[in-house]
């Protein structure tokens, strides 16, 4: 989806300029903002198709921008975080950011994430989701791996469904727990870790070297198509 309009928000002018030049070279249309306020104003004026957002801004946090943006826009947001910002990073993801990269990051990684985020479309009404060799029939609540049926417990199935519907997107522990177990959940990460490890045994060719269900340390999980990476 080259030509997409990207809003880049960072208070370091030099970073902003480097990103602007590079992303423009990659075929994107780039707008920039240095503060939370100007970012929200720019987004309202010309809604971007994706946002690259620094977590620490002079007049607020990236999390606040995400929260505000999410009230009217579903454009993917990639957060730029630094080591030491872990809590803020998870807060931004919980608030609705789609992904994060850790500073300093090369343009290759950033473009790859941006492409993945833009490719991700809102889940269709299709009853069968196919990711690599995984075939998930949402109506019959059945899973086939490599064509062979695999039995899942109800929680395992719901976990896989939530991840598969958000293929490629990083989901935080809190988001997954609330989607699968209900709104009363959010901090029971252990529960989630156990189910993820059980699920891996059923979907991964080698559960110790997962290719589908990836761990994002300190943040959450994402389900990817190994061939698409």
């Amino acid at each position, binding site marked *: 989806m080259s030509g997409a309009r990207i809003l880049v928000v960072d*208070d*370091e*002018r*030099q*970073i902003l*300029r*480097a*990103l602007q*030049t*590079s992303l*423009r*070279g*990659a*075929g994107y249309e780039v707008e920039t903002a240095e503060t939370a306020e100007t970012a929200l104003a720019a987004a309202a004026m010309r809604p971007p198709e994706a946002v690259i957002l620094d977590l*620490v801004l*002079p007049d607020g946090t990236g999390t606040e921008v995400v929260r505000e943006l999410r009230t009217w826009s579903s454009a993917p947001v990639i957060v730029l975080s*630094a*080591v*030491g910002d872990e809590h803020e990073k998870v807060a931004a993801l919980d608030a609705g950011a789609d992904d994060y990269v850790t*500073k*300093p*990051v*090369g*343009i*290759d990684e*950033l473009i790859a994430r941006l492409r993945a985020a833009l490719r991700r479309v809102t889940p269709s009404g299709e009853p069968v989701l196919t990711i690599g060799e995984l075939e998930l029939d949402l109506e019959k609540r059945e899973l086939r791996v490599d064509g062979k049926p695999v039995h899942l417990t109800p929680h395992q199935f719901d976990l896989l469904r939530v991840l598969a519907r958000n293929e490629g997107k990083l989901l935080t522990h809190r988001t997954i727990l609330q989607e699968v177990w209900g709104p009363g959940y959010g901090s029971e990460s252990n529960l989630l870790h156990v189910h993820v490890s059980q699920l891996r045994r059923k979907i991964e060719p080698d559960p110790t070297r997962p290719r589908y269900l990836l761990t994002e340390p300190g943040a959450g999980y994402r389900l990817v198509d190994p061939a698409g990476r």
Partner: protein
Amino acid sequence: MSSSRTAGVLAGAALVAAVTGLIFLLRDHVPVLGLSVLYLLAVLPAAVLWGLADAVLVSVASMLTFNFFFLPPVHTLSLEDSSNWLALGVFLVTSIVVSELAARSRRRANESTLLAEIAASLLEQRDLSGDLDRIAAEAAPALQVERVSIVVGDDLPRSAGERHPLLTGGRRVGTIVLEQPRRGSAAARRRLLPALASLLGVAIDRERLAREALDAETLRRSDAAKTAILRAVSHDLRSPLMAILTSASALARTDLALDQDDQRELVATIRGEAERLDRVIGNLLDLSRLQAGAAQPEPEVWPVDELVTQALGRLGQPGGRVKVELPDEALAVRVDAQQIESVLVNLLENALKYSPEAEPVRVQLALTPDRVLVRIVDHGPGVASQDRERIFEPFQRAGGGARGAGLGLAIARGFAEANDATVWAESRPGQGATFVLALPAARV
């Protein structure tokens, strides 16, 4: 001492006289020999208030008075009936025994009070060392020794006196030293010392624990400060790195449509940010040198515009936005050129950072009788009055937030002061900030 002694004798005499008067009133109704027991009313207060020796004196005085006034022949100390001698003897023995019992219970009460007071004062959370001397002074009379000293620590103090360990959980935490005990006073010490020693042991140990807790807290706080500093510094290092990495990786890709201008700009960013990184590292070293007091200036006479020119050179390309308003004549200052250039670089970098990109930063030079003023005027958001001093502290930035270490202004002030110069911020709301550097003027 003698006046209280006199008062004691008078009080004793008054007690004896009062009881004698009472017996006079009662002797027509009660056999007079039986009334002699009333003198215990005089003996007991003496025993409780002044101790055994005085009680014995009062007993003897009572016996003689009773004999003189009531036993025939009255008004003499001799006795008609020799069996009365026996009665007086029984009285004397009784009163002495009662006195001894009373005096002992008084001592015990005093000891209990002393222990209670010591316990109370030890339980109050205070500095123990002052308390220990006071407690030692209070305990000396009760222990019936000339001098008591309390020594903290597990070393055995050198002393000629009796040394008793203060133990807690089997560990020696201190020693109580008793010097020159009075004769026949061992019983008092046997009674009092174990309780006193365990009280002191607990108090000393508790103070040690409190101190250790404080040390741990201090350590934790300095750890938190270090974490904050590391975070701030890593932001300052990572921002230029991010710009370099982004630019370099963009240049390395063959699939990006970058024209010559784009490529030139990316290369310029890499160079500029590498220089900025170098300045950040230089600032960190400068700050540690300043804080260690190792920044000895080597002052020489310099034209101030030369220093400004050098500083602009060190700033590189971003310095292009700085407009210098040169005066007609050269202004000379006496400073360490390297250090004052550092001050100027940091002040200019700060002004450029906070100014909108389209606005220039101005440098104005002026002379006062003994100072050369360098004014650096920006068009940024300005500095709120409550932040005007704080921003010169390391790891502080106006408005708070976690945006980097903000070492530049701290270094500027550090080097300025080392060179007998001053630096301060002036600001009017909405009109940007002016940083003024006042350098010592030199005659050319």
